[in-house]
């Protein structure tokens, strides 16, 4: 059982491309931490450096107190589930499961015993003598997971393990992984670009962009207090609306103002925002679920209504730009309508328009 600590990790490839910059983070013992970010942001590279498959250009990685950068993968006591599963095609399921034990020198009987026991918990018992190519995607996925589990490593590394599964199976495996983590309580580092996976499974999420760590926090912290515009835009679906405007003080109360849109901020925030008043250069972030089709903040002309059954996703054109609203109920609006818009002032996010950083409030 160990924590994993990254210290000023830096990775540049031979062709000059920088995959990771000054990456520092501590993954607590037993934590389920997710690297979340768009394609190419350096998630896999970081995971591979953790596994020892890639060498950092500079910086350190510690497992507990032990620096591991110079250790080969096999000596780090980790297990990794590859996005491709990487099952050995010439070995049966049982041989695949036993391989890590074979490399540890575990005796044949003991190996077979553990593989059989594990196969039972993963519902693979009937498939032990099949080759990987005769398995379905979900079964291959479970074999890959089993091969990682069998040696009871200190750290699990998972690189988009669910991305090759269909939607239904993915939801099911998500639940299984959560249960698994709860049961074995090992440190897990999980890579995904799917924010739903990140939000539902993680103890904490590390949001990355272009090789830089943007924010680390629990799923709720990331959702409620995104530290900058990137995190705010990346997490949440449909994505957050952004409106550019200014903050003005009116009767001692802070009001966010943009073309055709006004949101009076609650008292508690007003006080903290007083010093930040300015006519422009403020970016307001409004999640679709924090808007409603009621009078209060402005109005817009409906462009599209996507009916989901229990709610409508309404896209409206306003003087401040396009705004997406999640409107509870059915047939709440029709294309062409002029609808009122109300922003929940408690849930308004404010960022500096130039830097994209969250404004102190």
């Amino acid at each position, binding site marked *: 059982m160990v924590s994993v600590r990254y210290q000023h990790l830096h990775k540049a490839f*031979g062709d000059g491309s920088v995959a990771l910059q000054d990456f520092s983070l501590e993954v607590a013992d037993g934590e389920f931490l997710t690297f979340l970010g768009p394609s190419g942001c350096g998630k896999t590279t970081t995971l591979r450096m953790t*596994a*020892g*498959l890639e060498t950092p250009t500079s910086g350190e990685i510690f497992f507990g107190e032990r620096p591991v950068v110079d250790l*080969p*993968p*096999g000596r780090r006591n*980790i*297990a*990794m589930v*590859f*996005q*491709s*599963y*990487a*099952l*050995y*095609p*010439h070995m049966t399921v049982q041989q695949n499961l036993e*391989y*890590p034990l074979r*490399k*540890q020198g575990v005796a044949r009987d003991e190996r077979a015993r553990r593989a059989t026991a594990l196969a039972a918990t993963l519902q693979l018992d009937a498939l032990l003598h099949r*080759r*990987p*190519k*005769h398995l379905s*995607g979900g079964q*291959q996925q479970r074999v890959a997971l089993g*091969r990682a589990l069998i*040696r009871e490593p200190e750290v699990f590394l998972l690189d988009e393990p669910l*991305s*090759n599964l269909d939607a239904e199976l993915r939801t099911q495996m998500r639940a299984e992984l959560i249960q698994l983590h709860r049961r074995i309580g090992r440190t897990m580092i999980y890579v995904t670009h799917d924010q739903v996976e990140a939000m539902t499974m993680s103890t904490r999420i590390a949001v990355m962009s272009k090789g830089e760590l943007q924010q680390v926090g629990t799923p709720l912290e990331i959702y409620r207090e995104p530290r900058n515009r990137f995190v705010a835009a990346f997490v949440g679906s449909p994505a957050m609306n952004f409106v550019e405007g200014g903050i003005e003080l009116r009767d001692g109360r802070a009001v966010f103002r943009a073309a055709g849109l006004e949101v009076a901020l609650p008292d508690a925030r007003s006080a903290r925002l007083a010093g930040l008043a300015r006519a422009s250069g403020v970016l307001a972030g409004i999640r679709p679920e924090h808007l409603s089709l009621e009078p209060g903040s402005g109005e817009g002309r409906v462009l599209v209504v996507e009916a989901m059954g229990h709610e409508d996703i309404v896209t409206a054109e306003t003087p401040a730009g396009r705004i997406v609203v999640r409107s509870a109920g059915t047939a709440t609006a029709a294309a062409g309508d002029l609808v009122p818009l109300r922003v929940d002032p408690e849930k308004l996010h404010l960022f500096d328009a130039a830097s994209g950083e969250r404004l102190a409030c």
Partner: protein
Amino acid sequence: MSGRRALRLRRRLLRVAADLTTWALVLAVAFPLFWMLGTSLKPSAETFALPPTLIPAHVTFEHFRTLLFETPFPTYFLNSVIVATGTTLLVIVVSLLGAYSVVRFRYRGRRLAAQMVLFTYLLPAVVLLLPLYLILASLGLVNSLLGLILAYTTFAMPFSLWLLRSFILAMPIDLEEAAMVDGASRVEAFLDVVVPQALPGIISAALFSFILSWNEYLYALVFNRQDHTKTLPPGVITMLQQNTNTEWSLLMAASVMMAVPVIVAFVFLQRHLTSGFGAGAVKG
């Protein structure tokens, strides 16, 4: 309904035509082999009998006995086995490691090195005869089996290297990395994961190398002039042409025995040639 029956009939006719063609080809190719086998089993007197007999009237193993006990044939045979086996092993080891290196490691000139190796095939073998002879002579390897093994390796290795290279290119690197994460060293990952998957390629390359060195005549004739280092192709021909007339029956018996190891190798290895493990191990 009748349309479907007509279709089925046409398909069956096509099938019969294809089968007939195949068998005709097989017969044409196999006929000299039957003739060879027949002649080796006839008494010498029957060889030129008219009308010719494909199936011997009298079967005799006399020629095989003569060959095995009254000629240096067994020495040649042993030499050929050593040379062909040695070449095959050397070619496989060198080209497998070479192919792995060219595909997986990055170093200056690895592409060029792999391409240069193919230049061997641009020149007719005769052109390389003298340079190779001089090299072997300066190494003191003329008239030795090792010399022949080295010479044959230079011929078989490029093909083998490129064949295995394409096999390794098609292997996802994930598998080796997974093995290393699972506790294997790089060498173990190579042995546990790369070699088994390259097996069909290894066997093809091995057959190619074996047959090439088993049948080679020119280099063997020029390099190894002493009886105790001769291999079968030059050995048999010089041995049976010492007399003014060629001993056809003995030559045919020798040919039959030369063909046996190759046939055996094919029968045992053919299964692996066609059965790759295929894709499906790695998704996405």
